[in-house]
């Protein structure tokens, strides 16, 4: 970093007050802060080199010491921070609990100026968890989030899970979500569609037709759930490129016709449009290979050190999206 005096001179120059600095003057200004020129061989004597090596050695030792110190303290700080957040989130979880009552959730989101039309979440599948509980837990989490979204009035929920294991359990997942919706809403539950890109949609497995026509007028609404995996990310872009290449090779398309709009339409129709809000439930702020094209303007919500899916996180994300302040308690 440059000293205060030099900064002053630089700013005066940038503002073009008085006569601007010449190249030479600028160099003079910065000379003390520049790294030393690359050492030329043979200009230093052996003795000098030896002394330099010794001082270099001690310098490195000092650096290692400071590095160890920094990380010891940082590890301590992180531990404290995790505890603090764990306690804080517990308090939030007690203050904001949905009691499986749609009315409560509706009341929670009533004051918000806007709600996402398309909500997306990233969930993690842990196959290491004993037995097959990893999968059961994943389905459980999706069912909960789907129920909250239906209560809040969000029509489209997309769930990203890297491995895509759920795509082979679509009927099971549909049943689990429908059951959860029933637990929240009773018999007049919203209609539910579950689908994944390039797979047939699974609509209302168990709901009878008359209740569906009922929902058209004043019913509890409709929820679509979309399952995504790493395949729908970069691979989809690669597939599109392959198709376009084939067309171009058969002279059915000129490469100049490939525009942002064309790609956008194709990607939107084959997977999905841009989500409005993306909630990360894990502790790390990483996208894990989430579809790149669609995440352009999506608001990314995360809270530090969180582990697990909780209603309070969901609600805080909606508040943040609606640019509203959260009051403590209801």
């Amino acid at each position, binding site marked *: *970093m440059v*000293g*205060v005096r030099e*900064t002053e001179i630089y*700013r005066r120059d940038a*503002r073009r007050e008085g006569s601007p600095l010449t*190249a030479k003057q*600028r*160099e003079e200004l*910065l000379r003390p802060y520049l*790294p030393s020129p*690359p050492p030329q061989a043979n200009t230093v004597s052996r003795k000098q080199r030896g002394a330099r090596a010794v001082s270099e050695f001690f310098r490195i030792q*000092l*650096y*290692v010491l*400071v*590095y160890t110190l*920094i*990380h010891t303290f940082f*590890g301590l700080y*992180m531990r404290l921070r995790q505890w603090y957040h764990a306690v804080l989130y517990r308090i939030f979880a007690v203050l904001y609990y949905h009691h499986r009552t749609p009315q409560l959730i509706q009341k929670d989101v009533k004051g918000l100026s806007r709600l996402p039309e398309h909500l997306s979440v990233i969930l993690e599948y842990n196959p290491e968890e004993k037995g*097959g509980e*990893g999968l059961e837990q994943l*389905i459980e989490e999706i069912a909960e989030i789907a129920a909250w979204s239906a209560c809040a009035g969000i029509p489209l929920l997309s769930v990203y899970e890297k491995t895509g294991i759920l795509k*082979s*359990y*679509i*009927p*099971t997942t549909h049943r689990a979500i429908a059951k959860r919706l029933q637990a929240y809403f009773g018999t007049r539950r919203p209609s539910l569609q579950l689908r994944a890109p390039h797979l047939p949609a699974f609509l209302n497995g168990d709901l009878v037709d008359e209740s569906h026509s009922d929902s058209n007028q004043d019913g509890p609404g409709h929820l679509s759930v979309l399952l995504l995996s790493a395949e729908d990310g*970069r691979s989809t*872009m*690669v597939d599109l*490129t*392959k*198709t376009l*290449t084939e067309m*171009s*090779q058969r002279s059915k398309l000129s*490469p*100049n016709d*490939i*525009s*942002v709009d064309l*790609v*956008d339409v194709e990607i939107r129709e084959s997977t999905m449009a841009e989500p409005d809000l993306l909630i990360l439930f894990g502790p*790390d*702020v*990483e*996208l*894990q*290979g989430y579809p*790149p*094209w669609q*995440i*352009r*303007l999506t*608001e*990314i*919500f*995360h809270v530090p050190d969180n582990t697990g899916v909780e209603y309070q996180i969901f609600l805080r994300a909606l508040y943040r999206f609606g640019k509203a302040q959260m009051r403590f308690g209801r």
Partner: protein
Amino acid sequence: MSSMHLSQFRRWFLSSPPAEWIIQQLRELLIGALRQGPIPQHVAFVMDGNRRFARTRQIETVEGHNLGFEALARVLEVCYKSGVKVITIYAFSIENFKRSKYEVDALMEMAKVKLSQLAQHGELLDRYGARIRILGQRDLLKPDVLEAMDNAAKMTSGNRHAILNVCFPYTSRDEITTAIRETVIDYSKPLQAYQRPFSETHIRQNIRARHLHDQSSSSKDHHHHHTSEVAAGAAEAQTSDAEGSTSSSNTLNPDSAHEQGLRDETAYADPETITSETLDDHMFTAGNPPLDLLVRTSGVERLSDFMLWQCHENTHLAFLDCLWPEFDLWTFLPVLIEWQWKQKRLEQRKQIKVSHTPPAHQAVSSPPLKAR
């Protein structure tokens, strides 16, 4: 009043030579210490908040951008000294052309002035060994700005130590689309067939000559007919030779000739060989290490059409609340340390996994839920 005195005192104190020397030493020490751990190879910055900074301080927007440039210089220095190989900055979005003409012009002027000033210090730049590359839609720029950019890029093109990617009129969707288009163009070029040392016409003639020989020795009735055919064939062979030996000859086998023509037409690289690495190689950031860290200031938690493709599996996103002109070592340091901490934890987890690899049959055992 007292706060003003205090800030004046602080200013005086910080600008006094001993204090400045101590701070300088402290910075060197911290950066040197950080170098002992893992360092992100590729860092991207979204320099957000210059305008809001100017608005809150009630200074001109352009002045805010100037201060933002100073922050950039500070950060580049830290990154360079700590050993980051590639830095990508979002300097100007294609969407930014929608801003007021005054602001756009001022930004363009700033880029031009800074880059041409840079070009005056070639020898100093070499000490940093950094190479400047401009990523983006060049045709949206005015020629004078373009010239300054090309100059700076050309001057530093020999440097190998580090790379500074300046995204100037850039959006990530435009980058991805360009990469797709370039890939399509690449794969639509007919493959250069390998030139074998044998000529098809020559072989054809050879076969015909042999045929002729056989026929003439076996029966004399058909002799006349065959000579005429050979004559026609020879004439045709001559023309096809002249054309480059690929044209069809219907005397020998019309069907195979037709097929041959088709095959020649489709001698392209197989589209199935396109992978995400192929697209990677056609991005503006081709050849750079994968993005390890993306920093966005001013509390906005969005990518805003920046590095969409590159923010892949393990890119750590850091959304900071401070405005870009306030960004410096002391705000960047916690981000770097946290990244190192995560990296070390990841390393540990990997080691545990390696030492406790479960038996194979357990790993592939199917989950209890069955798809129906």
